[in-house]
């Protein structure tokens, strides 16, 4: 039985939702934390809801809530948010060639939804090619957005009834999701080198309290992975020549 177009889209929407589901669930504790922290630090319900609706970035929300409640100057708040968000520039660059010539509804939609989680799902080379895969990406990113909003609302509603959640180890859920996303992609030496260097440098920079550390360690690690792959191909060419 041949599928008509509408059925094919429905299947892709379903697939996108299901592929994202473990990631959507893994940010539940973090979303609840963001929502309840906003209320506990004296934000109004409207302000607390607008953060996941408009900003839609866990790390930025969490840091900014503390900064705003400490009466930090606006310029400092914006600069900190910019530094935390700067890793997204890499995601945009990596997806540029696939998305730049599409109509704004796709570019803008995926651009708005482009979290670490969506990028992890759309990072492989065949992603986002053709309308069906775009529908898949929008469904994955969109369902993640709705879940994030829902988890925040739960936190806002529970608000002051919840104890202070900041020291319960909720960040472990984020770490383990990323482990589950990264480990299966380590199938060759260049990626292994990338992962080892990124892990090593990010810890050093974090201890040095260097805000830009995340992006710099990623860039150096990417470069090391690239050089390893380059060396490998040159070695293979040499070996083939000498045979």
């Amino acid at each position: 039985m041949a599928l008509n177009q509408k059925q094919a889209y429905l299947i892709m929407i379903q697939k996108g939702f299901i592929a994202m589901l473990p990631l959507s669930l893994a940010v539940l504790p973090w979303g609840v934390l963001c929502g309840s922290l906003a209320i506990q630090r004296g934000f109004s319900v409207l302000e607390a809801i607008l953060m996941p609706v408009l900003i839609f970035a866990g790390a930025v929300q969490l840091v900014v809530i503390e900064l705003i409640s400490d009466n930090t100057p606006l310029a400092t708040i914006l600069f900190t948010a910019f530094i935390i968000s700067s890793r997204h520039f890499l995601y945009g660059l990596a997806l540029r060639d696939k998305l730049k010539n599409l109509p704004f509804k796709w570019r803008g939609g995926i651009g708005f939804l482009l979290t670490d989680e969506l990028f992890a799902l759309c990072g492989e080379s065949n992603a986002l090619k053709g309308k069906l895969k775009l529908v898949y990406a929008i469904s994955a990113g969109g369902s993640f957005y709705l879940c994030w909003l829902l988890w925040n609302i739960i936190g806002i509603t529970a608000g002051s009834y919840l104890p202070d959640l900041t020291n319960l180890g909720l960040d472990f859920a984020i770490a383990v999701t990323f482990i589950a996303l990264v480990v299966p992609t380590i199938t060759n030496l260049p990626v292994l080198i990338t992962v080892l260097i990124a892990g090593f440098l990010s810890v050093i920079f974090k201890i040095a309290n260097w805000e830009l550390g995340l992006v710099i360690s990623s860039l150096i690690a990417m470069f090391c992975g690239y050089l390893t792959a380059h060396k490998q191909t040159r070695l293979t060419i040499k070996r083939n020549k000498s045979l």
Partner: protein
Amino acid sequence: MILLTIVLLACITFFSRYLFLHPKLPLRIGAKVTHLLSFSAPAVLTAIWVPIIFIKDNNFNSSLTNPYLLAATVAIITSYKSQNIYLTLATSISTFILLRLFLT
């Protein structure tokens, strides 16, 4: 005032995600840079999760009683063996909860 801050922050996060998807940006990405960028997902994701495991309150913690480290080891082994994200989440998060109950 907080509302204005939130709107400005929203502009920053959207700008960082959307900028390089914009067609009018005069920028062409060659084959080498594309290859370099293919390493961005493992690099950035790892640079996010490794510090969560090893750093607590700005101190490096690699002791064997660090529940993050033990549970992350379980996660890495499960993920490597099964490649299953649900199984990885289930085993390591339950390990983490048990360790926190017994180690503290």
